[in-house]
């Protein structure tokens, strides 16, 4: 059953996002699905426009990676009226769940928790001053990953966040902000660990740490989220300690659910959670890098 699926992607702001797009296209190809792709350039209005046009074109299903949680009720209703099932990718919306078929994604807050737990375990009862590189101010990953991490360290007074600034999810800002952290915290002497909301910022920060004459990974522990290839290189060199995987392959499960639903109307669960796997230096980073590096990151 070859169907036409519209995919409204947020944009292409990071390597991870690019990988998600690539994998989605691959998946569609493998399953003989005709994928209509719309890049919204980070703008919700464009995503809404896209969904409306998909409806106007009468596609069979819609994949939506929502840029923000709110504001989808109307357009999702329109899709429902037109009897087009919608599957959410990698981020949730706060509309009632009968407006969409299912949501495939990880629990952003859980990711933060995983990272936090690792750090707590790693430092034991040593005191540990953490500096945090937040994602883009106001973006849901930034908010949730911060919340999750704080939840994880809440019980442990020896671990506390001493500085927290936004690095806009980018390497450049990650590096710049880390430099200022190092200056502000006595040349980095007082920093025990870095928690970055994504790997790109961590990679940037690692360079800053090295240029400051410190050893990332030992002088300053580095834990981040996403598991993009480059962070595994860093782990390989012992410059990063841990990362939490956010799989870019959200489309696979999504298409499975869709095909099942189309063929015999089986209702999938409302939330298909992907695993938030923790990787550390002991997981043979080299190998993982090799396998990941041609997944379109």
């Amino acid at each position, binding site marked *: 059953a070859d169907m036409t699926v519209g995919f409204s992607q947020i944009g292409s702001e990071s390597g991870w996002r690019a990988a998600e797009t690539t994998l989605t296209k691959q998946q569609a190809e493998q399953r003989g699905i005709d994928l209509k792709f719309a890049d919204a350039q980070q703008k919700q209005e464009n995503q809404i426009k896209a969904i409306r046009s998909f409806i*106007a074109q009468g596609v069979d299903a819609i994949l939506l990676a929502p840029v923000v949680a709110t504001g989808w009720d109307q357009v999702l209703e329109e899709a429902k009226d037109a009897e087009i099932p919608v599957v959410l990718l990698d981020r949730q919306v706060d509309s009632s769940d009968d407006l969409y078929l299912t949501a495939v994604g990880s629990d952003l807050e859980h990711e933060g928790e995983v990272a936090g737990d690792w750090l707590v375990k790693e430092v034991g009862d040593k005191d540990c001053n953490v500096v945090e590189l937040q994602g*883009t101010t106001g973006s849901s990953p930034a908010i949730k990953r911060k919340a999750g991490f704080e939840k994880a360290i809440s019980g442990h007074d020896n671990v506390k966040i001493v500085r927290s600034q936004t690095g806009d999810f980018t390497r450049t800002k990650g590096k710049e902000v880390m430099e200022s952290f190092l200056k502000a915290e006595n040349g980095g002497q007082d920093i025990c660990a870095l928690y970055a909301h994504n790997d790109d910022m961590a990679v940037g920060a690692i360079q800053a740490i090295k240029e400051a004459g410190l050893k990332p990974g030992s002088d300053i522990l580095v834990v981040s989220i996403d598991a993009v290839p480059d962070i595994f290189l860093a782990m390989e060199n012992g410059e990063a300690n841990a990362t939490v995987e956010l799989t870019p392959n959200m489309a696979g499960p999504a298409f499975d659910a869709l095909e099942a639903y189309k063929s015999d109307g089986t209702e999938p669960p409302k939330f298909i959670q992907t695993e938030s796997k923790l990787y550390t230096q002991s997981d043979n980073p080299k190998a993982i890098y090799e396998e990941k590096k041609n997944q379109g990151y």
Partner: protein
Amino acid sequence: MGSRLFPLATTFVIFILAYALCYAQFPNMLSTRVIGNLLTDNAFLGIAAVGMTFVILSGGIDLSIGSVIAFTGVFLAVTMGEGGVPPLFAILLVLAITTAFGALMGAMIHYLAMPPFIVTLAGMFFARGMAFLISTDSVPIRVELYDTLQDLYFRMPGGGRLSFVGMAMLAVVVAGIVIAHFTSFGRNVYAIGGNRQSAELMGVPIARTTILIYALSSFLAGLAGIAFSLYTSAGYSLAAVGVELDAIAAVVIGGTLLTGGSGYVAGTLLGILIMGLIQTYIVFDGTLSSWWTKIVIGLLLFSFIALQRGLVWLSARRRGAAAIPA
């Protein structure tokens, strides 16, 4: 007269041609749905662009509108939500705030003789910063007023909807046309855009007009913010990033000169529709990767402007106007 309306006519023809081409490729782009969407989806942009038209006609520019839209949304969401402020009051309040904000920028531009680009750039930072301070979360709006307004639409034959915001946008455009062409304020805007010194020597109230212009722009940005919050029934501090550039592009595609003094509000509507058409076309096509999307948008933008320039240039040559660009 005819010769002056020429750029406008050109733009209109270009729009029709473009639409025809799209139709040829994707027949159901002519559905009332698409047309309805074109209006609804671009409503907030259109409203803001009308304000931008006045600013640009006066030879200025307003980079703050995107941020003001975001601020408005967040402000409404928080005040009406947690704040429990009655919706209508909140709306009036936010419009008052944005208008005052614009007036302040206008005053700085005039009395401190500072370039609009910079004043409004600072305004852009400031307004979004304020939005962050109110709330970094995206805050849903759940009030009856919004539900009623959202359910307020004409169902056109073929399932298309002419939504409330869409109609609001058209109303604002009409109002804009009247203000621009049938009020003294409108004349003064053109006058200042034409030549500030001369306008002053002809007794145009520069200070008042300048302040009014930016107040109007911010007021409409506030209105656009309301439209946007209606459109998404939420307020979000990261919303509408870069909308100012879309608005500027729409205004210029609509045939208004950034140097000020010449252009039409109606043209801006065309500009909006053309930009919306580009978006819609790309989505209908659906084969473009993220990067090709950007490139194609750029190219289409270019071809529209180039085409326009070409036609205008030809007509200018026929009328034997000066060869040296002013």
